[in-house]
């Protein structure tokens, strides 16, 4: 007999204004408790989802995020808590916006492709310019069109940079060192990138032929869905010191945000590993609450193979963002008749929000090596952390939060408290609120276009029919998400950005 909604709520307690606890027993075999961060508006969405699933009698439907957090808490070797961030929503196995860390030293501890997500190393990159809104305004339409012409977008689009199969293998192993060698990146770019744009654990031989075949034509393409390139202007500066360290000095300054990932290659790596891991689970006697939570012991062959393949896919994503950066710089050069260098088009930072990494964290007062899964969550290390670039040692790692189409985006910085509470992690974006089907039903095409026009945002979109699915109303309010993280102390607000041109798949 399934529990009622009221009985389910009995397992969830409020700890602070924005923090909730999921106690053991909510689902079977929980090794640790769950935690999630929401403000009152997001709280409503979270509990509605749970209520909807209790009423649904389990036919069709999907698992609500709270139950997924709890299922993750039941995986072997998990330490701390299974944590949900304010932008959380139901995903596969892990929710989008779920963090979990596993003790590498524990032989039972696992790594799970579901905890990384299908789009491995999906992430956000921010480029600055020394242009201002007034400089862009007169040529905004030309610039938007030029970006759309330069960046390959949409289903079935092909990359602009010529690639051979042998190049792909090098990309997978070298990441941004490849784009630097080939002349597509600037030397400074990789300094401002997580892992310096290259995961050294990558092994291209652990990426299947099938995944490589999917990846080859897609390298340097933006993709579809929620991926985009946006021209934005600085709307508000909250932390002057942090902003100026990043090269953002004044309101009105123009920046470019890119959001994309490892495309079909990353998906295939994830899919291939799911099949492998099912066999490993049967062999090692690992039981999970949800089939999509397939996992393998970190130190098993399957676990190691997945990590090496995932790292290769992560490198692919950095190469992808770098190729698109190259396209963006070219589009700006053409439009303004100036060199990208003269426009100071430096990479401010590049974050990954779907990845697993081996990191050292303090657990019960002792340093321990953990495999931290961040799915729809961004690493946010505090100032003085050895793994962040020299330039940002005093302000903490910049965290880039992409908003939904036509709404604002944010730059945050990491905090000490985040290091203690959430393994140095914060939110990644808005997170969906309405389903795609519901968006299509309830939002009209004209209203979305009118709204963008009113806000004076230029748009080019490869699949115009889908514009409703990506309308701001379909997403949680990114400001709520960012404010929740700010008040919970897991990240600090530095800069707010507002879009003036959008290019979408």
């Amino acid at each position, binding site marked *: 007999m399934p529990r009622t909604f009221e009985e389910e709520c009995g397992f969830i307690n409020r700890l602070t204004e924005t923090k909730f606890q999921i106690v053991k027993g909510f689902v079977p075999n929980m090794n640790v408790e769950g935690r999630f961060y929401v403000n009152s508006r997001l709280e409503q969405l979270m509990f509605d*989802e749970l209520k909807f699933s209790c009423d649904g009698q389990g*036919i*069709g*439907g*999907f*698992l609500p995020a709270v139950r997924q957090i709890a299922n993750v808490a039941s995986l072997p070797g998990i330490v701390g808590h299974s944590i949900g961030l304010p932008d959380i*929503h*139901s*995903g*596969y*196995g892990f929710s*989008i916006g779920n963090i979990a860390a596993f003790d590498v030293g524990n032989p039972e501890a696992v790594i799970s492709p579901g905890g990384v997500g*299908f*789009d491995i190393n999906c992430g956000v990159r921010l480029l600055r310019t020394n242009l201002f809104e007034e400089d862009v305004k007169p040529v905004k339409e030309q610039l938007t069109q030029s970006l759309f012409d330069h960046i390959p977008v*949409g*289903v*079935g*689009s092909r990359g602009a940079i010529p690639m051979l199969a042998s190049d792909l293998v090098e990309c997978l192993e070298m990441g941004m060192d490849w784009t630097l060698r080939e002349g597509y990146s600037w030397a400074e770019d990789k300094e401002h990138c997580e892992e310096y744009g290259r995961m050294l654990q990558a092994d291209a031989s652990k990426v299947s032929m*099938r995944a490589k*075949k*999917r990846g080859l*034509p*897609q390298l340097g393409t933006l*993709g*579809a*869905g929620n991926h985009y390139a946006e021209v934005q202007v600085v709307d508000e500066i909250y932390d002057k010191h942090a902003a100026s360290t990043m090269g953002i000095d004044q309101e009105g300054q123009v920046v470019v945000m890119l959001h994309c990932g490892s495309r*079909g290659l990353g*998906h*295939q790596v*994830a*899919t291939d590993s*799911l*099949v492998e891991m*099912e066999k490993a689970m049967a062999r090692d006697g690992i039981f999970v609450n*949800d*089939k*999509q939570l*397939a996992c393998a012991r970190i130190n098993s062959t399957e676990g190691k193979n997945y990590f090496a393949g995932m790292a290769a896919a992560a490198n692919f994503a950095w190469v992808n963002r770098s190729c698109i950066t190259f396209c963006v710089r070219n589009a700006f050069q053409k439009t303004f008749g100036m060199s990208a260098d003269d426009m100071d088009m430096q990479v401010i930072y590049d974050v990954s929000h779907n990845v697993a990494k081996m990191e050292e964290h303090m657990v019960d007062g002792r340093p321990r090596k953990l495999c931290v899964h961040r799915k729809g969550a961004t690493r946010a290390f505090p100032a003085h952390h050895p793994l962040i670039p020299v330039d940002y040692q005093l302000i903490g790692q910049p965290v880039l939060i992409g908003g939904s189409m036509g709404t604002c985006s944010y730059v945050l910085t990491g905090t000490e408290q985040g290091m203690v509470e959430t393994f140095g992690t914060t939110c990644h974006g808005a997170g*969906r*609120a*309405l*389903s*795609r*089907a*519901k968006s*299509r039903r309830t939002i009209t095409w004209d209203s979305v276009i009118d709204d963008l026009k009113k806000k004076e945002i230029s748009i080019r979109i*490869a*699949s115009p*029919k*889908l514009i409703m*699915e990506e309308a701001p109303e379909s997403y949680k309010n990114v400001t709520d998400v960012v404010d929740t993280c700010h008040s919970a102390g897991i990240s600090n607000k530095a800069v707010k950005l507002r879009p003036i041109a959008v290019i979408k*798949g």
Partner: protein
Amino acid sequence: MPSTSMIEDRGEIERRRFEYLDHPADIQLHSWGTTIERAFEACLVSMFGYMTDLEKVEEQYEFYWKVSGDSMDGLLFQFLDEALNSFHAEPCFVAKRVEIMRFDKEKLEIDFRGWGESFDTSKHETEADIKSPTYSNMQIIEKSDRCDVYVIVDI
């Protein structure tokens, strides 16, 4: 005429035997038929139908696939993934109609084929980019006279 994924006419939905259900981030495919074969076939067509308008796809050539699994869920996953792969890699094949030629429920193997053509951005509309089927809440409900299949796909 609305595109495949936008059709709301109940008569048409009953005829084609699939519909798209709500999911917060992605989409859930629900298909059915008198037998599991018919339900699987409709499921695959529904997947292609969410990526482009099938009205605009011509039956130019046939494409053959062969898959096996270690459970019924695994088989359905492979069935969709295999076909999706011929879309994402060469020859970018989109099927408008699918037929299962052999369904071995003992050995868990399926031989199937589709009729369609290669995706061409100048001719076909690009809609959602389905990246993979998932096991998330996958359900195959088989009764004596009807089979229902639910699959969430990742967008």
